[in-house]
Structures are given as C-alpha cells and as structure tokens.
C-alpha cells in the first residue's frame, strides 16, 4: 500500500536506516540528511557524505531507497550534495549518547579540538568504557575515515574516537 509522503513520515523511516559501519547511528543521528523535499509526484532526500571517500555512502543511498520502498513510499529521488561540507557538529545529541554506549567516544565540539598544531594532544577525550579522561591518541586515523585510535591510560582499553571534523 502506498504510504502518505510527509516529512514526518519519511523522517521516521530514515530514523531506522543505520550507518553500515557504525550500526547504532541512523542517518538522521549522523546529520547527513540535509533536507527532505516532498513534491506532488516525487520525494527527494538530500544527503551529504561525511568524508569524500566514505565507502559507506553507496550502501547508505541504497538502504535509504530500499527502506522507503519497503514502507510504501514510491518515486524516491536521492540527491548527494557536497556543500555545505558535513561537520561532526551536525551529529545529534542522541546520536552522541548512542555512540558512547556502543563503545566509541563521540566527537567533542569542533571549536574545542579541531586544530592543526603539530604533535598537539587533543583535549581530553573521555574513555567510553571507564569514563577516565586519562587517554592518549595512538593514531590520527582509525578503522574508518571518521575515527581516530585512542588508548585509555586508566583502564588500558583501546577505543575509537569519532574525530571532530
């Protein structure tokens, strides 16, 4: 049965479309859905990639389409825009909580930590396991483009930090 395309209805479906690399975050939590345009005969979802080379984007596009079709929405168009460039500041507070519960340290607010001084230690990143701030960065680059590798000096556990961008 065809579903009624309203922004709210579409959004509630998008809330269930997860990032394949970080499956606790929905595309809404990530802040990559920039707009939903409902017209008479077409619904356009405008998304933006996190990083230029994020390999999850193709899968995310396909999943958005499939999930909407499965929920009875037809004539879906997905448009990718690059500008304005995505920032971790667009991640929802709810998303940050989910990330932490999943064991990934959520991004600190951008103005606190995004600087390019050499060998600069980023401001305290909280360990998602034991909540200690005694942590240090092992590598700027982690298991995916959006993460950095950290180790907790208190509980000695390694963890991923969703780096500010």
């Amino acid at each position, binding site marked *: 049965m065809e579903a009624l395309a309203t922004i709210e209805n579409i959004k509630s479906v998008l809330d269930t479309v997860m990032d394949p690399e970080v499956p606790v975050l929905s595309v809404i939590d990530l802040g990559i859905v920039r707009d939903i345009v409902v017209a008479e005969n077409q619904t356009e979802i405008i998304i933006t*990639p996190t*990083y*230029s*080379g*994020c*390999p999850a984007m193709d899968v995310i596009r396909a999943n958005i389409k499939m999930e909407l079709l499965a929920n009875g929405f037809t004539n879906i168009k997905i448009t990718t*825009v*690059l*500008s*304005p*460039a*995505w920032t971790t500041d667009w991640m929802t507070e709810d998303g940050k909580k989910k990330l932490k519960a999943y064991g990934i340290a959520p991004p600190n607010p951008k103005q606190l930590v995004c600087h*390019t001084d*050499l*060998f600069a230690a980023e401001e305290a990143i909280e360990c998602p396991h034991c909540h200690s701030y005694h942590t240090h960065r*092992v*590598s*700027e*680059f*982690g*298991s995916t*483009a959006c993460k950095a*590798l950290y180790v907790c000096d208190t509980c000695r556990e390694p963890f991923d930090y969703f780096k500010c*961008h």
Partner: protein
Amino acid sequence: MKNHLVDYILHLADNALILGQRNAEWCGHGPVLEQDIAITNISLDLIGQSRNFYQYAAQIIGNESDEDKLAFLRNEREFRNCLLVELPKGDWAQTILRQFFFSAYQQLLFTELQKCNDKQIAAIATKSLKEVAYHLRWSSEWVIRLGDGTEESHQRIVDAIEALWRYTGELFISADYEIQNANAGIGTDAGLLKPQWEEKVKEIFAEATLPYPSKSYFQTGGKEGKHTEHLGYILAEMQYMQRVFPGSEW
C-alpha cells in the same frame, strides 16, 4: 574542441587518483599497523576526492561519460597528473615526504579553489580541505620524526629529498589550462602558490634538521600528458579489469 575546464578538473582528479593508488600499495605492508591504517585512510580520502572531480567532469562531458570510464579507460597520454604523484612509493621516507609535499600544495590550492567561480569545484575543494588538514599534520609530523630521529631515518629522508625534489617544481608551473581557468576566476596561476609552499617546507625541514635544497633542475610534462615510465605500469595494473572485462561491476 579543447575544453579547458574539463582538462583542469581531470588534472585535479588524476592527481588525487594516482597518489591515492600509490599510497594504497602500502595496504598490509605499512611499517606498523597504525601507520598502515593511516596511509590507507589518506588513500581513501584521495580516491574519494578524485571520484568527486571525475563525476563532475563526466557531467560536463556528457555523452554517457562517467567516473569509471574516465579513471579506467583513458590512456597514459590523456592523464594530466603531476609527475610527483606517479613515482613509485619508494621506502616509507619517500612516501611520507611526497605526501607532505603534495598535501602542503593541495592545502594552498584548495584554499584558493574554495572561493572560485565554479560552485562545484569550490564545494569539492571545501570538503577536501578538511581532510587535507589531517594529511598535512600527519605527514609533517612524520617528516620531523624521521629527520630528527635516528641516523638511519635521517639518512633515508635526506635520500628521499634527493629523489623527489626535482619533481616538485612542476606543481608551480602552470599548464595552459590552469592559466585559462585562472583567467576565468577558477584557481590561480600555480606559480603564485610557490612562496607559501616553500615557507611551509622550510619551516618543517628546519624543525626536522633537514637541509633545504638550494636549487635544482625541475622535471615537467605530467600536466600535459608526458609522463615518466612509471605511470604506464600503475595504469596497467589499475585498469586491467575494465580493459579485460569491459563494463564489469562489483
């Protein structure tokens, strides 16, 4: 008809694709796991940037052109990347130094392109610049670590300077299409970026206790499609599947 805009976009795309491909050769071979992951993350960013540029070029070319055809079905002489990015990866010092030279250049160039007249190029540049900031920080730190490290690491990066320096001049010698686009408000004469680039290199080399090369003869030609022997081999490897199984998809 020659399309200067398309030539320029392909030049930007080819630079990113070939360097991304070269860095990817470290996948599974990095000196330590974290740095193996770092250099391949940088690869991913560069290949992503190249895709954005190729998609835009394909859109202008029309005629069923697409990003895959541009990456996999053009011949060596049609590639417009700088010679610097096509050189073999060498040892870790050479890979690091090249990344540093290139990221320092890319940061200056994309800062210019951010405010250019072409909205899509400006958008790609703005997006990429955030990634380049990480690449530049990481590679600068490594140049310092190697230069100011052990006797061997110092010697290796001195050798890398010797091997790569003559390929840096080309970055700052504009091809015809760069001048044409600069006149149209897209980008700038590459020569204008050189003083700032030299300043950055001097700053990092001083910190790394490395000698700054006094002068050199510079190799050119890549931007116009005249390449070193190395490009043919990397294209052969990269394009093999599409040449043998045309149109194949994952």
